[in-house]
């Protein structure tokens, strides 16, 4: 009897420490990623890298200024197309929605969120690149924009639902029409959280490579206008990391460092803001 209890206590202690070990291993993977990338990336990061065009093949030096600007352009297009759509859709789900159609939209958004990013690339390719007959920033930005919609939609809905009911009732009681209550009271009450959700979404699509490979493609030079192939940081990292030159590899590390820093800063900032929600949102 006693030995059985001892055995159970041993199993208890053993398995519980094992779960702790699992958590430790998972987290340490992140630390390895950060440490190794930080060490290598920081080393190769130079001022030239940030301000110059890529060097011609075979020469060393040069930078990725065009890719940094290109990533910005693509994200801007994505933000301008994806965020308003997701926002308005989210307002519908939270404020106007019925039952069946709301469920359908929400479920579809979740499914669209799970579509592999490479398939989104094919979608933008058949929709934009094929009719236009050339790669363009439009196509890449649109691919990212479509990926952004379900993310913004779901986060907007969640944050709007967290706005306390009395706020809506109060404004309606004062004679505001429903849309006025939404525009002037409900959305402003959660605008910080909604913006943060959109930022998280942008941070996620900023690192996407697969949808850009055959939409915005790549460019060794500045791209003049949105109708041209456009370089972007993720695609540059892919091309340079798999290329044959040691100098390319160094630049890939530097580019990876910049990209990861952007994504992580956006993520950490957003999560800090969300954890300190505005008082109006604490139901």
């Amino acid at each position, binding site marked *: 009897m006693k030995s059985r209890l001892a055995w159970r206590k041993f199993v*208890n202690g053993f398995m*519980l420490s*094992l*779960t702790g*070990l*699992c*958590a430790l291993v*998972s*987290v340490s*993977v*992140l630390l390895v*990623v950060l440490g190794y*990338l930080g060490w290598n990336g920081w080393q190769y990061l130079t001022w030239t890298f940030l301000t110059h065009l890529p060097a011609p093949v075979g020469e060393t030096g040069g930078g990725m200024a065009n890719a940094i600007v290109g990533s910005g352009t693509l994200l801007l297009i994505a933000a301008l197309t994806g965020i308003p759509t997701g926002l*308005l*859709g989210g307002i*519908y789900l939270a*404020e*106007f*929605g019925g039952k069946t*159609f709301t469920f359908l*939209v929400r479920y*579809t958004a979740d*499914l*669209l969120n*799970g*579509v*592999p990013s*490479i*398939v989104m690339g*094919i*979608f933008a*390719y*058949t*929709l934009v690149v094929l009719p236009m007959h050339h790669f363009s920033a439009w196509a890449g930005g649109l691919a990212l924009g479509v990926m952004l*919609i379900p993310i913004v*939609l779901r986060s907007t809905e969640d944050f709007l639902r967290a706005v306390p*009911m009395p706020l*809506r009732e109060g404004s*309606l009681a004062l004679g505001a*029409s*429903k*849309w*006025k209550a939404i525009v002037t009271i409900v959305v402003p009450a959660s605008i910080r959280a909604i913006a943060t959700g959109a930022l998280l979404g942008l*941070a996620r699509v*900023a*690192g996407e*490579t*697969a949808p850009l*490979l055959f939409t915005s493609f790549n460019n060794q030079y500045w791209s003049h206008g949105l109708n041209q192939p456009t370089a972007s940081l*993720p695609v540059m*990292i*892919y091309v340079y*990391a*798999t290329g044959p030159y040691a100098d390319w*590899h160094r630049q*890939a*590390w530097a580019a*990876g460092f910049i*990209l990861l820093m952007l994504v992580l800063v956006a*993520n950490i900032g957003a999560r800090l803001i969300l954890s300190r929600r505005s008082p109006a949102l604490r139901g």
Partner: protein
Amino acid sequence: MPVPIENSSPSKAQGSKRALYSFFRRLRSGDEIAHLIVLAFAALIVLITLLLVYELWTHSVLPRQRFGWNFLVTSKWDPVFEHFGALPFIYGTLITSSLSLVLALPLGVGAAIFLAELAPPRISHGLTFFVELLAAVPSVILGLLGVFLLVPLLRTEVEPFLKATLGFLPFFQGQMYGIGLLAAVVILTIMIIPFIITISREVLLAVPVEQREAALALGATRWEATWRVVVPYAKTGIYGSIFLALARALGETMAVTMVIGNDPRISASLFAPGYTIAAVIANEFTEATGNLYLQSLIELGLVLFLVTIIINALARVLILLTTRQGTAHP
């Protein structure tokens, strides 16, 4: 929950007249217009999804006419003679995804149990934050680390060790390149662990606290209460997280493309290079000459889309079922 604010219960006699009147009043105050606008944007997401299916379907007609179902079961991928069989890619995709799931599952569920059941709230929140950051690391960056850190490590340390100890198995034989199926499996494991952890943690937290208390009151140890009561209760949701992770692994492109070796071969050895559906699309799409070649790649995209959609749909239902069951939140 928003309450229906407009008075939407007209009586039968004057009903239609009053409804019409109220419709015009709301139209004038702008409510009806606002409703239609946001409804249009909500409908847009459904339309986009339908359009996605339509585009993939209409742009993959040629290989369907030419090869039919043979597309999925033959293994010759020859752009020169225009014969396209997708079996090696399907094999590569399935083998890497399922093996990474086997590795990630115990690790992820173990970590989730620790975070949900054991760790003090502060530590749990901190570690979950780290795990979520890991999920945010772009795939191409993990690929970068895969190429320069993981692959050399596999080639010089791990694969020789596996060959020496388990070399009698067919899975650990042949040339050791570093790049290959094994590298892809490891990278995928790293990518899907955060999903399993965060979702499993959530469903574990959704288990009513009474369940734990009852088990402990009956004399169970902490582990027994967790393993025999809490985990079975949250089982469905954990299955959901597994399916979600699987869909993620199937569609993962960049990191896998960079380390798998990109060779359309079916081999039992994990040391051998392979190819996945997503990787072949990423690699060959811009080089595809001729409509049949391009459309074959798009059909691969369609296959990938359908499989991940089905798995996702299943996962969502499972997760929905559990988080609804749960009543308390400790």
